């Protein structure tokens, strides 16, 4: 997988964020819809209610994993994983992790496909219920992996230690993300249900509308603690004021929605579906954008290098370094000269191998120059006097001439 060139990094990051927001919306609708369909199916089985059975069928028909949507959703997840790997190179995105996540997802989508087929062909609810529950559990399994992965992306300081203790992959932030996801999935699927209820068979419409509204309320009520739980469990380096404000904005959008829904439910009145769907989509996007901002906060300024070097440095350098015998001249050179001079290339001052030969065999002249530098070449700035003691100047000159002979 090629590394993203620096010039395309901002564009790539925006595309990656957009891809993830799309996946978040899609998954939320899928999980919420599936959860609701199963609950209705369970009630239909218990009460032997054909209306609810019809409703469960209607819901399964509307899942965004039917037909071409299933493979497309899987493809989006695969592309997002590949993009995350390209951008951040997390060590936990190993072939087994990638394989298991994508196989789990493919399994979940296959089961959801059969759930719909079985539900429409069979009269009893038992087998579809089993298949659907298995599909939803598999889907939730992939969500756990994605939530942990998303949280781990904010915590690169633990990556070098994952080999030693894989439990570092689990975190409170991952749990908070799962809760928040549920809080987003319920209102989103509820709103989708409301806005799509008009195209449902007329006898199902009131039931769908009512359930859609009922589904959205607990999700919206779970949203504030979910948002705050995610914020307080963010790693220190991922905290960004703008992210917190985006979360607050999401709550601000959710408040009037929740008020409206509660009142309409209490008064037995319906709520228009499309504005609700638009508002909930906005909430999901605000929360998702906050997450993208947190990650970019962590990944700005070359933090990446830091996680690469912690283990590389430890491997390359002995635990107790062997002291190299360094003479006083070399030490003085490092402390006073190396800032501007290299032997073989121009830095601030000229390459020493170019200017030192004129002092070959003339240590006194070199010492005099170090003591009181004179500007010779207009190409370079004047060298400052270093204010060294006589014995230091002598050691430095001896070191320089010695190095000259070695080249």
């Amino acid at each position, binding site marked *: 997988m090629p590394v993203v060139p620096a010039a395309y990094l901002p564009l790539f990051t925006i595309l990656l964020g957009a891809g993830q927001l799309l996946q978040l919306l899609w998954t939320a609708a899928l999980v919420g819809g599936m959860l609701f369909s199963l609950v209705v199916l369970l009630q239909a089985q218990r009460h032997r209610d054909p209306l609810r059975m019809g409703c469960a069928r209607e819901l399964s028909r509307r899942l965004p994993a039917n037909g071409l949507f299933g493979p497309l959703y899987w493809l989006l997840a695969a592309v997002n994983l590949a993009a995350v790997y390209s951008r951040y190179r997390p060590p936990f995105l190993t072939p087994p992790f990638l394989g298991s996540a994508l196989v789990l997802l493919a399994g979940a989508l296959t089961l959801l496909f059969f759930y719909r087929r079985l539900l429409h062909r069979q009269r009893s609810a038992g087998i579809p219920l089993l298949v659907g529950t298995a599909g939803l559990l598999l889907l939730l399994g992939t969500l756990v992996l994605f939530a942990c992965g998303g949280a781990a992306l904010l915590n690169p*300081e633990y990556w070098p230690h994952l080999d*030693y203790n894989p439990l570092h992959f689990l975190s409170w932030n991952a749990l908070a993300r799962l809760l928040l996801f549920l809080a987003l999935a319920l209102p989103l699927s509820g709103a989708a249900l409301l806005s799509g209820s008009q195209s449902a068979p007329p006898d199902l419409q009131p039931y769908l509308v009512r359930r859609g509204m009922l589904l959205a309320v607990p999700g919206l009520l779970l949203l504030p603690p979910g948002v705050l739980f995610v914020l307080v469990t963010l790693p220190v380096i991922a905290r960004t004021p703008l992210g917190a*404000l985006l*979360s607050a904005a999401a709550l601000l959008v959710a408040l009037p929605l929740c008020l409206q829904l509660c009142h309409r439910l209490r008064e037995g009145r319906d709520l228009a579906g499309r504005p609700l769907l638009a508002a909930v989509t906005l909430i999901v996007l605000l929360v998702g954008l906050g997450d993208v901002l947190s990650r970019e906060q962590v990944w700005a300024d070359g933090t990446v290098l830091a996680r690469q070097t912690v283990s590389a*440095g430890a491997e390359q350098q002995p635990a107790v370094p062997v002291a190299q015998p360094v003479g006083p001249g070399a030490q003085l050179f490092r402390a006073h000269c190396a800032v501007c001079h290299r032997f073989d290339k121009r830095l601030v001052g000229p390459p020493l191998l170019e200017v030192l030969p004129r002092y070959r065999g003339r240590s006194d002249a070199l010492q005099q120059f170090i003591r009181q530098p004179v500007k010779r070449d207009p190409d370079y700035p004047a060298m400052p006097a270093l204010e060294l003691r006589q014995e230091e100047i002598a050691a430095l000159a001896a070191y320089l001439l010695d190095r000259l002979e070695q080249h």
Partner: protein
Amino acid sequence: MARLLLNLGIIGYFGLFLLAAVALGGYWTGDRQQPQQPIAFPHTVHAGTLQLACEFCHRYAKQSRRAGVPSLTRCMSCHQTLAAEREEIKKLTRIFEAGQPLHWNRVYRLPDFIYFSHKRHVRGGVPCAACHGDVARMKTVRQVRSLEMGWCLACHRDLGAPTDCTTCHN
């Protein structure tokens, strides 16, 4: 009445969390992780373009608990002639000539009850970037590690360093 109570309940519930989120955002603003410095010192030039070793300026990293910030004399040894026309260098020169101290803002701050020694870590082979990140690419240095105990311990365990409480806790 019931409608009013429901309204108040929901608004109070959302308001509480909303306030908490805004307060967190406010608490996270400012210079907590990336303080502005009195002189806009570019690590990108010194550690980046010039590739100076960290110890060139932070001279005590190998010998002492503290890595140290360079004295103004050290800055001026180069900058009395180099880039002397730049505004930030003029500011530096004024402070130096007035004999005033330069109050750099601290970026990494450990609690008082923690004993931490740069010397131990540098001599043990931990590269500076492991804790400070790639400062050569930071225009203004910022904190890139949480400095939480779990993070310290993960590395100590990984590299076989001591994990007794008293290793770090006074």
